[in-house]
């Protein structure tokens, strides 16, 4: 275990960008977990006297059209957006890499079926498909998660399939057969640990995209309903006020969105360094 932390330290210090991304990630997680505990105001509490006030010392991010504190709402929204993204990515990673690995290793029917299903999903512009799924299943946050998970599946399936396929006939796989391993054992103990680094990068990049997706869906009115605080819906509400100059309603949730996606994208490289034994010296 100590070796793991030693390596963690090395990776973080080696590339300052990874370190920054790591710190940002921690901040995001802390805010998500603590949420309403650290928010200065009740995110749902409206105050007719304080509508549309510009950012000030009392309200760091200003107030919105119902007098609610934007800063508190942005903080609380972190949890919702993060939970949506993490759940969606977790589902697509598990399901996608499972079937993708089977397709890549055994080929034949597996490959055909998994390939067809992935192709069918990819035949749609993905955001449009998400719109369709949410419209069909019903306008709830759960369905946003499922829709995002479904449209991300093909990425994991493809990466898993390719990575497993190129290692399927590697020397060490043949050697594992000679050592008495069954095919399933080989897939799990020999091949899967080797495909983790590219999958890790995929996950991190995907998290960013999942957040954008969820925000986009709520921007057009799907999923989250007012008065819940969620970054996308906050930007949507803020859009109406941009042309009259009240920029703070849309900027802060938008910036929060941008920073989290940015953070996850940067982490993608760092994660790969962490998991790849080539980096261990």
């Amino acid at each position: 275990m100590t070796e793991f932390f030693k390596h963690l330290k090395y990776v973080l210090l080696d590339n300052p960008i990874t370190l920054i991304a790591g710190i940002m990630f921690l901040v995001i997680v802390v805010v998500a977990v603590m949420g309403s505990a650290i928010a200065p105001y009740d995110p749902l509490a409206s105050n007719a006297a304080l509508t549309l006030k510009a950012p000030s010392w009392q309200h760091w991010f200003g107030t919105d059209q119902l007098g609610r504190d934007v800063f508190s709402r942005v903080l609380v929204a972190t949890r919702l957006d993060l939970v949506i993204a993490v759940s969606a990515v977790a589902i697509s990673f598990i399901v996608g890499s499972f079937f993708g690995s089977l397709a890549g290793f055994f080929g034949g029917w597996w490959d055909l079926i998994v390939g067809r299903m992935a192709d069918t999903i990819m035949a749609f512009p993905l955001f449009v498909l998400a719109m369709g799924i949410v419209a069909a299943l019903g306008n709830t946050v759960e369905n946003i998660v499922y829709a995002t998970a479904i449209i991300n599946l093909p990425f994991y399936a493809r990466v898993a399939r390719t990575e497993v396929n190129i290692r399927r006939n590697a020397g060490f796989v043949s050697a594992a057969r000679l050592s008495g391993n069954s095919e399933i054992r080989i897939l799990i103990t020999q091949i899967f640990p080797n495909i983790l680094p590219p999958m890790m990068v995929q996950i991190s990049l995907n998290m960013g995209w999942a957040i954008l997706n969820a925000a986009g869906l709520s921007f057009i009115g799907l999923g989250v309903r007012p008065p819940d605080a969620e970054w996308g819906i906050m930007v949507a509400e803020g859009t109406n006020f941009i042309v009259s100059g009240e920029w703070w309603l849309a900027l802060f949730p938008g910036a929060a969105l941008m920073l989290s996606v940015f953070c996850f994208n940067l982490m993608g490289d760092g994660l790969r360094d962490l998991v790849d034994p080539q980096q261990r010296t």
Partner: protein
Amino acid sequence: MNTNSKLMIIIRRILHAVPSVIGIIIVTFVLTRALPGDPAVYFAGPAATAESIQEIREALGLDKAWPEQFWIYVSDLVVGNLGVSISTGFPVAEELARRLPASLELTLIALIFSISIAIPLGIAAATRPNSWVDQVCRLVVTAGVSLPVFFTGIFMIYIFYYILGIAPSPLGRLGIYFMSPPHVTGFYTIDALLVGDLEVFWAAFVQMIMPAITLGIFTLAPLARMTRASMIQVLSGDFIRTARASGLSRGTVLYKYAFQNALLPILTTLGMVFSFMLGSNVLVEKVFAWPGIGSFAIEALIVSDYVAVQGFVLAMAILYVILNLTIDIIYTLIDPRVGLDG
């Protein structure tokens, strides 16, 4: 490779698109039938009475067995019948056809903008690693991928329209004072040029700049990233070393040898970029009140006009299949190795 076998491969590619179309039709069918509760209620709309719901149920055949429903659905599709939109009262197919040119015009300009910046930027970044061009490229890529497209749009409006006042008001395809040109293609810019009306052309063009740039920035990122990565990969190849060892000029090595090889993965990325583009189109149309099929879909969603939404998803998917097919065919024509391993 003789032209005969190239033709064969192209035909094969076209045939390959057929299962995709079948898949799309099946998925859209399932989506609409997977509605919770009674689908007829949804199709009839929120203002329906018990009789109209029953009417709809019979009209759409929702009381029949699924295979029969599917058959009805497909036969309707084949004659271009996508149902009637309950919000506008017009056939969905007609609405989509009317609004499609607006979306296409926007997407096309955005694509041209995107490619003309992404590719030179990517090449420059790849040939000058760790220089300021490389850093700019990386910054553009990361920012472009992290920024939500609707956020960019909104802030472009804020800065260029509200603060600087140099952009026109984001109210659609033409300013209020202009009449749309006589309809030929549906592309206001081209139609205006066709009748020689430069004022209208300019007005239409100027309205398009901000939404096109917004959309373009979003697609710029993956293209620049792929161009840079692909060029770097190709430039480190053995055959580039041979080309340099033969004394070939920098231009020849870069363009004739490196770029043409790098183009192949870039083309493949273009497929993904189109997916993002068509999706982001919806968001940009909302921000800029652009009367394309994206805003049609959003309005339909708000009033629960499911027939319209289904038609929209189907139309977008078919468009995407056509775009992908085009890329596939271009790829086949460029790469002489295609067809080696089937």
